């Protein structure tokens, strides 16, 4: 795309944000009454819906259950209307399997699975509108859904993407910035301890730029954790005020 600058001379990006600004995050918890926990999250134009069931008895084969901790089963899917072109995505295709595996890895690091041996926790995430940062929106929505289900976790899991243009790291990439061919780093972080749950990067990057890029992503995640914390506290207030006798 000739002439499309990811970062203008005045320091503004394609959608008018500064380099380290995040997109607007809005979220709601308990959107489904039937599920144990559910949450809906919007990060800019990316919309994700997460539903959690469990911990419950291991369905299917007995051999899948672990004797000392719970098994986390994640499933990631995108709605057919989520991208610019309507595209039917069959279940179990390579991309969604890979994303499901990444989500499983992320939440195994955060959920206290030792408290529920021989059981299974199911996390289903669906992208309703994809505008970059699909993995991050999934992780943030699933964190809120797990909190809504009352499943004990070590910390919030916050995820954000970051990219690099010229010498400036950009935080929270949108679709146009991701598909431009530049570097895109996705980071899932446990904010209080600063431990990284998952780190993934596409395309090439000079070694000297790696540290500032990770720094930018970590700062963005810490900012996101404050937003998620505010959503949880507000939801608790709304629910608890009604039940005071």
């Amino acid at each position, binding site marked *: 795309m000739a002439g499309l600058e990811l970062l203008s001379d005045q320091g503004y990006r394609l959608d008018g944000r500064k380099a380290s600004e995040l997109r607007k995050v809005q979220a709601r918890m308990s959107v489904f009454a039937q599920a144990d926990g559910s949450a809906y999250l919007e990060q800019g134009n990316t919309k994700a819906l997460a539903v959690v069931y469990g911990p419950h008895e291991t369905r299917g084969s007995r051999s899948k259950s672990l004797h000392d901790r719970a098994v986390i089963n994640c499933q990631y899917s995108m709605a057919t209307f989520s991208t610019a072109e309507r595209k039917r995505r069959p279940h179990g295709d390579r991309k969604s399997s890979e994303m499901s595996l990444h989500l499983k890895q992320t939440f195994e690091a955060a959920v206290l699975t030792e408290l529920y041996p021989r059981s299974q926790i199911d996390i289903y995430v669906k992208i309703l509108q994809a505008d970059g940062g699909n993995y991050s929106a999934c992780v943030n929505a699933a964190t809120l859904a797990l909190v809504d289900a009352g499943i004990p976790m070590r910390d919030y899991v916050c995820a954000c993407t970051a990219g690099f243009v010229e010498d400036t790291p950009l935080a929270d990439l949108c679709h146009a910035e991701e598909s431009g061919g530049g570097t895109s780093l996705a980071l899932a972080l446990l904010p209080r301890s600063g431990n990284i749950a998952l780190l993934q990067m596409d395309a090439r990057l000079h070694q000297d730029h790696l540290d500032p890029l990770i720094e930018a992503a970590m700062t963005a995640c810490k900012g996101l954790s404050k937003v998620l914390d505010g959503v949880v*506290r507000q939801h608790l207030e709304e629910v608890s005020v009604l039940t005071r006798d």
Partner: protein
Amino acid sequence: MDTIHACFKEKIGEVLLPGDVFSFSFPESGDGSIKTEKVICGPGLRRNGEEVQVCKSGILRHKQPNMYWIDSQQRRYVPAKGESVIGIVTAKSGDIFKVDVGGSEQASLSYLAFEGATKRNRPNVQVGDLVYGQFTIANKDMEPELVCIDSCGRANGMGVFGADGLLFKVSLGLVRRLLAPQSEIVKDLEKIFPFELVVGMNGRVWVKAKTVQQTLIVTNLLETCENMTSQQRQTLFKKVAEGSL
């Protein structure tokens, strides 16, 4: 020195999340006379050395003179020893029944754990029946075990029940309010029409009234009680009592 009470008092009615800590700074014992204060930590609060930690999310409540607890809204049940629950029989295997109690694992119920049951005289329990029993073993390392007799060998209201009637699920907070000794909700409901009610600590409630319509009315009233203040509840019950036949 009312340091402990002062620390708690400023947070009464506020939303607290697991991980929040109350730390008390005791001044050096220069004068030698430290007034000992007694503070009772109820459910959701746990003492850890010199600190009190919050382990459930909810609102801090206070009862005179010195009791503090966390009022939490939870739907998921975790089996605990001594609690009476409603279970659904899912399988019969050899000498035990597998019972679904809504936790992370199914509980086992021996066929000898009924009143008057011997090896020759087996109890009449089929798959799909409802049982009301107590936990004898309930921790995360072992499979939970239920019994339908008390320590003297008598049924005491436990066992198979539910020939007709309707089983539904509510939150654990509502169940605790129903089981309280002078429960207002039950008293108000009794005035409308007579019905049978079994309440399990796992959030399951079974109702049976004279006609199907009355059963459904009681079910709907109990389900809506969750999100209503006592004023709204009393006006609703009054409306139903006048409107119903």
